[in-house]
């Protein structure tokens, strides 16, 4: 064997020690999964400080909403957390219903819960499988996408669109769920558990995954609360706050489900909490579907509340009857004045408490509408979670927080 000669680069003393590198992660970067920026100061691979810049896709939704009647705002909410648009849509409709004092029938509540829990699953499965991508396991992500497709097909059957759904109406749904919709739901409920089990097996006890995620980006329960964390990220830190349990809406009180919590608030706990929440969501959907099937006769046909001033008339009537056409126009253009009032309503979105603060001065559009966007609020904690750690861990922390650019910027 020949002797191996190693060549050392001779650098002058003091030229590399204590030097730091500035690294821009984002605004467009494969690791951010959205348009936002991190300016990181690195010492080798260690993060010394980081500053986030957001606002690259700010679309002035709150200003736009001041000129839009209620139904035209639903499409804005689609574009907040676009991984779970139906929750945003229904959160908005529930806010309007609270302002208008609309009582929804039980069947509507249960149908809504089916849709909201489906979108929670689609939200969480993206987040968890993307964590896999960022730790080097692409397969799980590609595989599980087929099952998100099944969810999107259900949306399609109900409202005609897939990603930005604009699903539902004030008081219920635009039409009853078709048999095909229920068949697709059954197919999903039958096939998804096995796939989720496989995804879980791929990661949960996977040595590489555990080493990459355990202990990275931890946050204590006290800090998480002070930072306004909600949703899976807060629960991973050990606080069992869930809007569905604390302020039940849409008859969540009729359902039996657990709120999974973690202990250390690290990336691994966030993964586990989201994973368990998907199982809980499946259980809720099963319960809701069962309850929906129990409605018989005329009750089984109910898919909206009786609010003629806000619920759009049937499409076939709009095309054939003058009165329906007039009402359709009046509702869409906001010719019906809202009652005066100040309402705050929140739902458990994919990322936590999604709140709508609506002030109405009795006009056709909101006087002021503010969205409480969970991503925007908890992203502040990011430096505290990653400083002192490795750059590669910071990337995983970012994906485990499930930051959605649309929700950051509104």
């Amino acid at each position, binding site marked *: 064997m020949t002797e191996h000669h190693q060549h050392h680069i001779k650098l002058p003393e003091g030229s590399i020690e204590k030097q730091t590198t500035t690294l821009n992660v984002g605004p467009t970067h494969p690791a951010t999964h959205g348009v936002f920026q991190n300016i990181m100061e690195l010492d080798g691979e260690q993060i010394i400080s980081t500053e986030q810049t957001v606002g690259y896709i700010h679309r*002035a939704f*709150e200003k736009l909403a001041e000129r839009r009647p209620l139904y035209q705002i639903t499409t804005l909410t689609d574009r907040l957390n676009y991984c779970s648009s139906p929750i945003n849509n229904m959160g908005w409709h529930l806010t309007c219903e609270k302002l208008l004092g609309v009582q929804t029938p039980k069947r509507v509540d249960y149908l809504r819960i089916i849709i909201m829990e489906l979108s929670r699953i689609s939200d969480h499965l993206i987040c968890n499988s993307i964590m896999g991508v960022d730790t080097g396991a692409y397969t799980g992500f590609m595989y599980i996408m087929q099952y998100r497709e099944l969810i999107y097909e259900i949306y399609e059957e109900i409202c005609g669109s897939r990603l930005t759904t604009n699903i539902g109406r004030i008081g219920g749904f635009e039409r009853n769920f078709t048999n095909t919709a229920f068949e697709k739901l059954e197919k999903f409920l039958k096939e998804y558990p096995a796939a989720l089990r496989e995804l879980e097996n791929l990661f949960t006890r996977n040595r590489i995954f555990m080493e990459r995620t355990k202990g990275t980006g931890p946050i204590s329960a006290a800090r998480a*609360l002070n*930072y306004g964390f909600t949703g899976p990220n807060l629960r991973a830190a050990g606080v069992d706050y869930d809007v569905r349990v*604390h302020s039940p809406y849409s008859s969540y009180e009729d359902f039996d489900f657990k709120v999974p919590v973690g202990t250390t608030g690290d990336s691994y706990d966030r993964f586990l909490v989201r994973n368990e929440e998907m199982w809980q969501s499946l259980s809720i959907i099963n319960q809701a579907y069962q309850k929906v099937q129990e409605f018989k006769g005329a009750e089984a046909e109910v898919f909206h509340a009786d609010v003629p001033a806000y619920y759009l008339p049937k499409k076939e009537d709009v095309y054939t009857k003058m009165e329906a056409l007039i009402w359709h126009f009046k509702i869409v253009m906001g010719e019906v004045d809202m009652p005066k009032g*100040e309402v705050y309503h929140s739902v458990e979105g994919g990322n936590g408490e999604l709140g709508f603060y609506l002030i109405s001065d009795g006009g056709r559009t909101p006087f002021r509408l503010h969205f*409480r966007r969970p991503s925007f*609020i908890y992203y*502040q904690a990011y430096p505290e979670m990653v400083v002192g750690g490795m750059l590669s861990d910071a990337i995983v922390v970012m994906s485990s927080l499930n930051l959605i650019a649309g929700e950051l910027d509104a």
Partner: protein
Amino acid sequence: MALTQEHIQLRLTEKFGDLVSNFESPYGMLSFEAAKDQNLKVLQFLYDEADLDFQFLTDLTAVNYPDKPGRELAVVYHLHNLKENVRIRLTVYTDIATPDIFTASKLFSSANWMERETYDFFGINFVGHENLKRILNVDEMDYFPLRKEYPLEDQTRIDKDDQMFGRG
């Protein structure tokens, strides 16, 4: 003992007297108003007192009321007592000429960005905030776009007939 709205109101009026007012309960949420320079004291009191325990800041935003002279801007805090599961809403009014409000970012880390957002859109000057700069809009912007004086569309446009669009 469950935390009632009457109890919160009683404790606040005991401590702050006339500086807290307009107690209402629209849609079941206790809402009240505090004097402009008292916002931080009220927040701290609600945070510290063991029987009140409002330690979670759900939301912080502002509203512009151009028709209320001297009270054009309102900063609105939504607080949550997670143990008792009670929400309250605190509003602090300020005039638009000197929109100085004490920052809550020392008390709640979550207030940091929410105050920056509120500054960005309404120009509320959060006194004591460490990094009060724009967050969603471009740094060069020299106005506060969510104030009502800025209409949504460019009013000088002549290619759109307002009457045709039902906006006359």
